[in-house]
């Protein structure tokens, strides 16, 4: 908050209207206004008047506010006159420049006697008809409290000793913290938390109502929950079975390995292989026997029983040779010859082919006819001839040779069969021997392992079956769940369910927001100490006359100094004054820092920026040698500094530092008919000029003060 002007009208020591105009803040980085005042001229009235305006402080006249009206003005009023007194400021604010005043209206009963009528806080408004003051409805006072928090008033408008005592003496342990709390509008953060909590509770109530209305949805959600539980159980069961199956497979494999291991070194596998070979050969011998039997049967069949008739071959041959010698078996009987015989008498020819006339060749014809009657049928002749040929001993394909061959082949087959029988017997013995050998190995252990292997396999198979069943159940549950989801979504989109979901989300958001605001408030306040310590050190440490360091108490935020590592509160002189000045300037800086930091985040806590300091009695308690440091300190530390200086403090040291830096100077002229000022106190030197701060008036008049600008 920077001033454009401060105005007093008939207030306290000021008679008439007096305005302290400040340099334009936009054109001045550091404005230093000097107010040179005679003793008792009322420089303290400036700070008191500001307290009346900003804090609505009755200045020890709660029941007779008319006493705040200037005595001289009251004395000059006539009966029934309205006499106003006010303090007015024109200040920068978030809404631009605002002109605000607190006014006391009185009615004069008789000269010098005023009757209080009202106290009004009002603001100047620009209207077409002209500027007018509008009475406060609450907002103006809130704005003033934000500009100058009550607890920080003393820091911005410094009355010297009293503040120093309170700060360094630790008499204001809570004041600074309370003042800083106002910087972030602490109560507004609390209100925000409270409101958001209320919103959260309201949503909770809405939720309860909706939940009751949405029974169907709740039931559906319940069913879905049940399905989800079943699904989880099935999934767990599936996992258990999978683990069991894996274990069984592991056992199976391990048994396999163990069995192989047991067989190692005892030629178990070789024994098995030998046994297998022996069994195969035994089987092969059996097959050989079968094959031989078949061959023998075949040979017997092919032999046509010739070997059995071999003894009759000689007799049959003799008989057939007799038949052949008797021409019963004509060797040359041809097909045509026989046909010609059989064709007689149609052919009328000889069997040799010559023509036989029945008349001339009757005998021949008769001979042929007789022969024909005796001769055998061709087939029989052929058969007998064939039999004859077969029986003849020299014939290659004769019966004898064939019979002999059959016998030989049969003997071979029988021989082979005998061998096969022998082989089979041998292999039977061998198998028996090998089986006996195998039984002598670790049969029991292997059998145990084989049993375990079988059991593992059974378990595996059972698990596989169970898993199949579970898979079916899971698929069904998945299907049910999908269906339920669809139905719930349908309800969510259309009914109270969607509102419930939104409300739950909103409630959660509200809860989170309330918690965060609370955390943020604490976090922001926790930064005050470290920041204040940094700032006070920054200002105090370089100018400390004794090398002491600034110390800010963590809990009270009050200033002290640290000498040789020890905190000292009982300090005085220059250290105390510099420390207090450092502290109040730091507080203003902290205020601005907070504003800037919150603005970076996007929060605009009103316009809390640079502040004007009005400092009274800065040099009073400071020893001469430290006044220079204090004077130096006041230059360039803030955008606006008003230094109220009484004539007795305005020595060469102070003057040399401040008059160069001052860019606005006022004098408070004590107008009095009394001789209460020494001659040397009636003027003050400024830039080699003597400035009058005393004016003699008629002794019958009431004393008063006027503020006048000193031209630079």
């Amino acid at each position, binding site marked *: 908050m920077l001033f454009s002007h401060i105005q007093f009208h008939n207030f306290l020591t000021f008679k008439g209207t007096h305005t302290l105009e400040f340099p334009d803040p936009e054109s001045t980085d550091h404005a230093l206004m000097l107010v040179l005042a005679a003793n008792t001229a009322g420089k303290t009235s400036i700070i008191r008047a500001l307290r009346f305006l900003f804090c609505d402080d009755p200045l020890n006249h709660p029941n007779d506010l008319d006493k705040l009206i200037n005595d001289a003005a009251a004395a000059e009023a006539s009966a029934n006159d309205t006499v106003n007194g006010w303090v007015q400021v024109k200040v920068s*604010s*978030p*809404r631009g420049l605002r002109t605000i005043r607190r006014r006391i209206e009185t009615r004069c009963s008789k000269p010098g006697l005023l009757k209080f009528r009202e106290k009004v806080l009002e603001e100047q408004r620009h209207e077409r008809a002209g500027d007018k003051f509008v009475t*406060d*409805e*609450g*907002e*103006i006072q*809130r*704005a003033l409290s*934000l500009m100058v928090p009550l607890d920080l008033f003393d820091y911005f408008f410094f009355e010297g000793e009293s503040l120093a005592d309170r700060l360094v003496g630790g008499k204001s342990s809570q004041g600074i913290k309370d003042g800083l709390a106002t910087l972030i*509008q602490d109560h*507004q*953060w609390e*209100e*925000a938390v409270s*409101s*958001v909590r*209320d*919103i959260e509770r*309201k949503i909770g109530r809405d939720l309860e109502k909706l939940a009751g209305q949405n029974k169907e949805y709740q039931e559906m959600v319940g069913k879905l929950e049940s399905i989800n539980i079943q699904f989880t159980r099935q999934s767990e069961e599936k996992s258990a079975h999978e683990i069991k199956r894996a274990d069984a497979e592991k056992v199976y494999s391990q048994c396999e390995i163990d069995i192989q291991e047991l067989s190692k070194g005892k030629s178990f596998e070789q024994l098995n292989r030998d046994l297998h070979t022996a069994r195969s050969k035994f089987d092969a011998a059996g097959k050989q026997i079968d094959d031989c039997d078949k061959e023998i049967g075949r040979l017997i069949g092919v032999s046509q029983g010739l070997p059995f008739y071999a003894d009759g071959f000689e007799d049959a041959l003799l008989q057939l040779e007799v038949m052949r010698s008797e021409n019963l078996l004509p060797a040359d009987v041809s097909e045509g010859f026989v046909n010609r015989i059989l064709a007689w008498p149609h052919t009328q020819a000889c069997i040799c082919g010559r023509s036989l006339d029945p008349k001339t060749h009757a005998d021949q014809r008769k001979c042929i006819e007789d022969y024909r009657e005796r001769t055998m049928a061709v087939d029989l002749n052929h058969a007998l001839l064939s039999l004859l040929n077969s029986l003849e001993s020299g014939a290659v394909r004769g019966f004898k040779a064939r019979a002999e061959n059959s016998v030989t082949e049969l003997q071979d087959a029988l021989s082979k069969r005998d061998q096969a029988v022998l082989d089979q017997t041998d292999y039977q013995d061998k198998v028996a021997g090998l089986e006996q050998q195998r039984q002598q190995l670790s049969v029991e252990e292997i059998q145990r392992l084989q049993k375990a292997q079988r059991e593992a396999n059974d378990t595996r198979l059972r698990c596989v079956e169970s898993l199949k069943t579970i898979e079916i159940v899971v698929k069904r549950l998945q299907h049910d769940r999908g269906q339920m989801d669809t139905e719930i979504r349908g309800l969510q989109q259309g009914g109270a369910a969607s509102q419930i979901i*939104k409300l739950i989300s*909103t409630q959660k*958001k*509200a809860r*989170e*927001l309330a918690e*965060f*605001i609370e*955390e*943020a408030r604490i*976090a*922001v306040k*926790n*930064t005050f100490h*470290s*920041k204040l310590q*940094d700032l006070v050190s920054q200002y105090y440490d370089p100018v400390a006359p004794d090398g002491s360091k600034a110390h800010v108490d963590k809990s009270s935020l009050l200033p002290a100094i640290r000498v040789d590592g020890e905190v000292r509160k009982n300090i005085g002189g220059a250290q105390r004054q510099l420390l207090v000045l450092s502290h109040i300037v730091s507080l203003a800086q902290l205020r601005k*820092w*907070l504003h800037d*930091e*919150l603005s*970076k*985040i*996007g*929060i*605009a*806590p*009103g316009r809390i920026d640079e502040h004007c300091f009005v400092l009274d009695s800065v040099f009073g308690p400071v020893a001469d040698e430290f006044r220079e440091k204090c004077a130096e300190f006041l230059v360039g530390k803030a955008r606006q500094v008003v230094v109220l200086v009484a004539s007795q403090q305005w020595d060469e040291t102070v003057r040399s530092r401040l008059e160069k830096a001052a860019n606005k100077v006022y004098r408070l002229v004590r107008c009095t008919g009394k001789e209460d000022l020494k001659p040397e106190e009636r003027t003050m030197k400024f830039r080699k000029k003597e400035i009058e701060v005393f004016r003699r008036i008629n002794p019958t008049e009431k004393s008063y003060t006027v503020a006048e600008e000193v031209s630079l």
Partner: protein
Amino acid sequence: MSKALPLDKMLSEKGDEFRSLFVKTMNLYLGSHVGSPVADKDKTARVRQQIEDIVKKGK
């Protein structure tokens, strides 16, 4: 002046939507302190309603 308020870091862990919600809320409350000259009770109710709208609709 190297120190910074921890707020920015705290908010960065919350996401943009929450940051916006917080900033809007605080601006309404802090702004209400110096807002238009209406009665406190009405003002509080109005601000509360605005916060509720922001929380519910994000507006």
